[in-house]
């Protein structure tokens, strides 16, 4: 009886040792795959351009940032040229990155250069409120909205 239960004890010990070995291997694998699954890809330098695009129809003029979506990877450098071919002034702000162009008067351009260090979704919008007297933006100011996605 005594011997038998001792045998069970050693059996439990062996099982525990095996469990430890398996756990250790899994943990070691996890640690290495975590490093290699985020490969040492070289950050890209992206030269992009954006304009204020106007769309008309049904007596309604729509203003949008073109393009409306930008997708980059964390660590990439973005060189964004922003142009305004519209008849009124606009100003682009990239929220979250605290970047804004100068006031873009009709026909002018500006450039934003930044490293996409933070991942997530960041809105860009016009920050010149609609003011017809000053020639600032348009009635559809609130929908001049686009998104930068920075993937991890």
């Amino acid at each position, binding site marked *: 009886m*005594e011997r038998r*239960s*001792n045998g069970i*004890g*050693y059996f*439990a*010990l062996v*099982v*525990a*040792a095996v*469990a*430890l070995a*398996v*756990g*250790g291997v*899994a*943990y070691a694998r*996890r640690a290495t795959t*975590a490093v290699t699954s985020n490969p040492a890809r070289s950050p890209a330098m992206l030269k992009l351009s954006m304009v204020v*695009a*106007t*769309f*008309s*129809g*049904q*007596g*309604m003029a*729509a203003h*949008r940032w*073109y*393009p*409306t*979506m930008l*997708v980059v990877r964390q660590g990439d450098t973005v060189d964004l040229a922003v142009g305004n*071919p519209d008849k009124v002034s606009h100003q682009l702000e990239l929220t979250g990155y605290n970047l804004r162009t100068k006031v873009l008067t009709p026909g002018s351009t500006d450039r934003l250069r930044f490293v996409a260090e*933070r*991942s*997530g*979704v960041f*809105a860009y919008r016009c920050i010149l409120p609609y003011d017809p007297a000053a020639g600032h933006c348009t009635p559809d100011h609130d*929908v001049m*909205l686009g*998104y930068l*996605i*920075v*993937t*991890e």
Partner: protein
Amino acid sequence: MNGSKSVVAGIALTLSLVAIALGLLVILAPAASPPAPPAAMDFSLLITGEGSIGGPALSHLYHPQLLVARRGDTIRLRVINQSFYRHAIEVVGYDVRTGPLTGGEHSSEVLTFVADTPGIFTYRCYLPYDPATATCAPDHDRMVGHLVVIDGGGAR
């Protein structure tokens, strides 16, 4: 004899606990680097018949023609019909659709949904071309855009 038995049991117990701890570490490891949280995105999807990027006056297009979201993001999609024809939009695979939108200033509708399935999804007009009722246009089949829901690295 009893003493050595409890020593063996103690070692076994200790090793088991270490193994369990390692297992939990592996399971919970992804939580160590928290992904960027899900976001709510307000898109305005314009159906337009002409414009600076519209090409020939009788072609129809969506602006934008490409939408990107991460899995878990909430999309509020305002569809605005600026063309002279009746259109209605559906996002195939997400089972969301607007009612018929007649052209003009107030013909918009908001579709709200969570991008919970990764993949590439088509959005298109689901009203067939019917000149008698000014429904859609001859280029109906080319009125398509894509929603790309990316997986991994982003919101989960």
